[in-house]
């Protein structure tokens, strides 16, 4: 990445919420600063939020149960919200979901702002709803999320197993916005993370301008489905 092209950057604290409208033609880089981060994320068409990230459409169009470079995130309308154009991790979890107040309370014990100030425990469900609320969205808009930097393996019997040390300090991925995309993020721990301590990790975000995907773009040509997905996305802007 050409550092001089970065438009702006910041660090999201562990356990914090974040949102931004990623403009078409820019890319969002997410970096795990310490190793073991988790970035829960949901994406919406900023111009019509009824169009949003769709887990099953993303998985079945590409026949995948993980996300990495070359794959894309589909909306329910057959369009591509973002493409993964860079990734040093190799596996990001699209199925594990997010944590709840009940789960966080059971795992890490009681916590309150009164006692712990800004170190009080956060959970993914409430964090998504808070950040969605800032854009006029609510529980009906809360859909299956992605967990960047985390990995969940599935056994032949269907058992789900959280992989330890999936993401290391310095690991990063880059999402190119193919539409104007409302990104809703939080850095709460993965719900299946066996760590008994409340230790959500920070994630560094930076945004830069990028070229539009060419005809030979690796995400476009990774499979015929994605070629059609890019065409449908480009038609939206005609």
């Amino acid at each position, binding site marked *: 990445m050409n550092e001089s092209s970065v438009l702006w950057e910041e660090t999201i604290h562990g356990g914090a919420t974040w949102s931004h409208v990623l403009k078409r033609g820019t890319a969002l880089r997410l970096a795990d600063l310490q190793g073991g981060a988790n970035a829960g994320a949901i994406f919406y068409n900023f111009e019509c939020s009824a169009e949003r990230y769709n*887990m*099953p459409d993303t998985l079945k169009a590409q026949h995948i149960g993980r996300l990495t470079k070359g794959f894309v995130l589909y909306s329910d309308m057959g369009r591509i919200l973002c493409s993964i154009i860079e990734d040093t991790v190799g596996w990001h979890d699209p199925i*594990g979901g997010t944590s709840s107040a009940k789960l966080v309370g059971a795992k890490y014990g009681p916590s309150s702002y009164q006692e712990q100030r800004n170190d009080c425990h956060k959970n993914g469900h409430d964090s998504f709803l808070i950040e969605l609320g800032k854009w006029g969205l609510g529980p*009906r808009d809360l859909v299956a999320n992605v967990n960047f930097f985390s990995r969940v393996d599935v056994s032949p019997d269907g058992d789900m197993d959280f992989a330890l040390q999936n993401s290391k300090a310095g690991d990063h991925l880059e999402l190119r916005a193919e539409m104007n995309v409302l990104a809703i993020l939080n850095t709460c721990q993965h719900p299946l993370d066996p760590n008994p301590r409340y230790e959500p990790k920070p994630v560094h975000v930076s945004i830069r301008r990028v070229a539009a995907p060419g005809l030979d773009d690796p995400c476009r040509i990774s499979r015929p489905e994605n070629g059609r997905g890019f065409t449908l996305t480009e038609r939206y802007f005609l």
Partner: protein
Amino acid sequence: MSGINLVESNLDPAKAIYSQVIPAGEPWIHELNTGQYFRIVDLQGNQAVDTLFYNAHDYSDRYSAQDTIQQQRNIYLTTGTKLVSANGTVLLTIVADTCGRHDTLGGACATESNMVRYAFEKRHMHACRNSFLKAVIEWDHGMTKRDITSNINFFMNVPVTPEGKLTFADGISDPGKYVEMRAETDVLVLISNCPQLNNPCNAYNPTPVQVLIWEGAEA
């Protein structure tokens, strides 16, 4: 919880208070009262039954695929599975299952996703998400596309491989296999009996399914 858990029901279809055949390609929407038992029968085998559940008193409190599989730490549904919402509400419990495995990740077909997956010319073909939308519009309780979330595919087999691939495996359902669940709260059920012709999820021949309801006292 792991593996296939085949359990037969002792409920007598003759004592059901409701029985309806849903033809292929049709939606069905219906309320269940707390304690009622609800069975879906795959009459002719290998028919995907795309299904969503809602708290009947608050449609935003709805079945969540990710919360359901996360809580049981297994991606397949079978006997014993609690179908939960993102708020943690237990909507239904699967109490009998003669198929043994039901999908949580494949979602519903749509005219748009068919264009991506198969060809632009497939846009005209009937799809589950059109059925879902038609059903919630006719239900006329303010539901919209925002309420159409990631659904269950009863009788469908969609494994994830160790390499992280999603595969649509051969169906493990046969004629007459069924799944039965108990409503743990008042529930709205929304079904699209899948019309997909472009892949083997309905064995390239969508067929009718039957739904039955019993009062809890019969169990």
